[in-house]
């Protein structure tokens, strides 16, 4: 077998059946080998960034490894945003790129770039293969590494001559992972039992550790008031009685209030990201912290924790559940207080009763949430619509909410939806996007058409870069700068050019029918939703500000009136 065939053999060994890629000069030997392979489905995207983001969406929606392939030079550099996106959100991904032949490396050859050097900061690990003999072993190691511990992208750069070289070397089987044992928890349990106002703070690590069931059992048994990060949305399921919702910059008033008042933060599978904590000095000022995570490097990075526990979240959560079964928490007053906050400070999306009124983002997303099937996967882009989805869509599982949390990659949603649809052929997959984000990877409409994927596309079009406009309005004296998109193309005509049916709505009385129409359609369909340019996401915390200083619509309106009177 040659190097290229060894790659396909590795795919077979690890049950990798779907990969996303784009061919070119130096990766041609692998594409030649694919011709004879019937076990690997190669999805041809229309841009390498689309390949990487589709592989990311596939991994998020399935819990499996995402794989993307590109050629050297521009093929590889086009992957970079997608790989950085996966790195920031700890998504398991294998990246394979062709490289110029070994003898030409360092000669500024055609389509040569130093991929290994330029991607060091966005990968869990990377390899430049020097001989065909080392390729099989490195493939095994890379596939294991991408998925173990804290997952992440692993990049293998392979010179063309290595792809063509024959080798009989077979990979050594990776040593079996030792059975995860539970670290010492007695101090954590004692601190938890002593707390009067403990708060459960969970993030994307629950999903990454495949620990959703253990987490829900713990949440149910402990009855701890709980908040989630953007990536933790869905952890508790939509029927959890104690979930106060997302915290942070666009979090619920209830969640941020509970963080502010709690005396113990039990952080599980979260990294205390700045969008969640706001200004660190003012974050949970009265609380001690127990931090549980798979990655020890996250401990004490941004906030000092009294107790840190590294390990398998599944094992730890089961042990904690058992401990609390034996010693229930006596925190009824605190639970009651949090329930009151939830009632008065949760996310509210007022339905507009006036049928001809313009469509508002929150009301539209609430209607979508009520109408779409329970197992619907929503792949968001980045901006105001992303926050409206996080606030107003009721997710029952974290794998149903695909969002670019760490990198905030506009253009993520459409290719991620493609990946998610390949991972879940029978599920409803919806890309909720904005007019800015949609245009960043719109070429992938051709991929949807080519594979006849029944992905639904919803563009929330406010004719501008809404989140930037909102921050310019609130924090830059309303000085709008380079946010105008009122020369957008006709999105309905654009979809139809890709042979994807589409319709446009712009009034409240069209919302329900519009959503039902695209959901009922047997194939891909686009819904263009015109919304008001001036609509903002509420509440909001000024970037760098404390979560205590949330600005909401009422306060803003009052301040406007005062200004006008003055």
């Amino acid at each position, binding site marked *: 077998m040659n190097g290229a065939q060894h790659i396909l053999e590795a795919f077979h060994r690890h049950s990798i059946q779907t990969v996303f890629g784009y061919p070119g000069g130096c990766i041609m030997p692998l594409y030649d080998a694919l011709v004879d392979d019937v076990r690997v489905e190669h999805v041809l995207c229309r841009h390498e960034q689309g390949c990487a983001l589709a592989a990311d969406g596939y991994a998020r929606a399935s819990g499996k490894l995402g794989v993307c392939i590109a050629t050297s030079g521009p093929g590889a550099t086009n992957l970079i945003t997608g790989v950085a996106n996966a790195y920031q959100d700890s998504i398991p991904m294998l990246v394979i790129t062709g490289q110029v032949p070994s003898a030409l490396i360092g000669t500024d050859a055609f389509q040569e770039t130093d991929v290994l050097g330029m991607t*060091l900061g966005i990968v869990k*690990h990377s390899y430049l293969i020097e001989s065909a003999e080392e390729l099989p072993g490195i493939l095994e190691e890379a596939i294991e*590494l991408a998925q173990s511990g804290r997952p992440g992208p692993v990049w293998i750069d392979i010179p063309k001559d290595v792809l063509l070289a024959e080798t009989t070397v077979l990979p050594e089987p990776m040593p079996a992972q030792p059975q995860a044992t539970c670290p010492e928890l007695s101090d954590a349990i004692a601190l938890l039992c002593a707390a009067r106002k403990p708060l459960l703070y969970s993030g994307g690590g629950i999903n990454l550790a495949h620990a959703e069931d253990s987490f829900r059992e713990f949440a149910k048994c402990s009855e701890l008031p709980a908040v989630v990060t953007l990536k933790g949305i869905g952890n508790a399921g939509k029927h959890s009685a104690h979930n106060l919702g997302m915290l942070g910059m666009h979090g619920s008033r209830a969640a941020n209030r509970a963080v502010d008042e709690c005396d113990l933060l039990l952080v599980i599978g979260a990294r205390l990201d700045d969008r969640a904590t706001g200004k660190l000095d003012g974050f949970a000022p009265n609380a001690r912290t127990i931090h549980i995570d798979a990655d*020890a*490097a996250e401990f*004490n990075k941004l906030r000092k924790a009294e107790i840190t526990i590294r390990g398998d979240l599944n094992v730890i959560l089961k042990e904690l559940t058992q401990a609390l079964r034996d010693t229930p928490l006596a925190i009824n007053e605190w639970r009651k207080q949090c329930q009151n906050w939830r009632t008065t400070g949760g996310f509210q999306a007022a339905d507009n009763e006036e049928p001809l009124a313009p469509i508002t983002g929150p009301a539209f997303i609430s209607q979508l949430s009520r109408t779409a099937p329970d197992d619907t996967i929503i792949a968001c882009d980045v901006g105001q619509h992303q926050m409206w989805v996080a606030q107003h869509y009721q997710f029952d599982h974290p794998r149903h909410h695909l969002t670019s949390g760490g990198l905030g990659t506009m253009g993520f949603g459409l290719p991620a939806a493609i990946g998610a649809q390949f991972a879940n052929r029978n599920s409803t997959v919806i890309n909720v996007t904005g007019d800015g984000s949609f245009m960043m990877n719109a070429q992938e409409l051709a991929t949807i058409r080519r594979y006849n994927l029944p992905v639904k596309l919803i563009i929330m079009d406010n004719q501008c870069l809404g989140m930037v406009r909102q921050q310019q309005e609130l924090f830059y004296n309303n000085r709008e700068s380079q946010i105008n998109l009122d020369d957008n193309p006709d999105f309905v005509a654009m979809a139809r050019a890709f042979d994807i049916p589409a319709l446009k709505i712009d009034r409240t009385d069209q919302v329900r029918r519009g959503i039902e129409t695209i959901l009922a359609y047997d194939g891909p369909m686009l819904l263009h939703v015109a919304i008001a340019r001036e609509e903002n996401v509420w509440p909001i915390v000024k970037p760098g500000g404390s979560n205590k200083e949330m600005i909401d619509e009422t306060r803003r309106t009052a301040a406007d009136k005062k200004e006008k009177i003055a």
Partner: protein
Amino acid sequence: MTTESSCKAPSYNITCRMSHEAAALERLCQVVRVRGFRIAKMAVDSADGALNIALTIQGTRPVAMLQSQLEKLHTVAEVKLAAPVVAAASRIA
């Protein structure tokens, strides 16, 4: 370029053992830089497929954070932090 802040920043000595693979040193130096430190001195020798690296670094952030980030690198076998250097390291050109 020498900056006032870099001269005043605490110095630390770190030793690191890692696999001698492509871009090993770049990987190490990149983490040091991104995590807020500057390299004032660096010595490397290789033996038996491993690199032994001695670094004197300067930075105002907690050095334990850097140590844990270096330990995360797949090819790093060991990171040792020596006692803090009392005097500031020589100025950086």
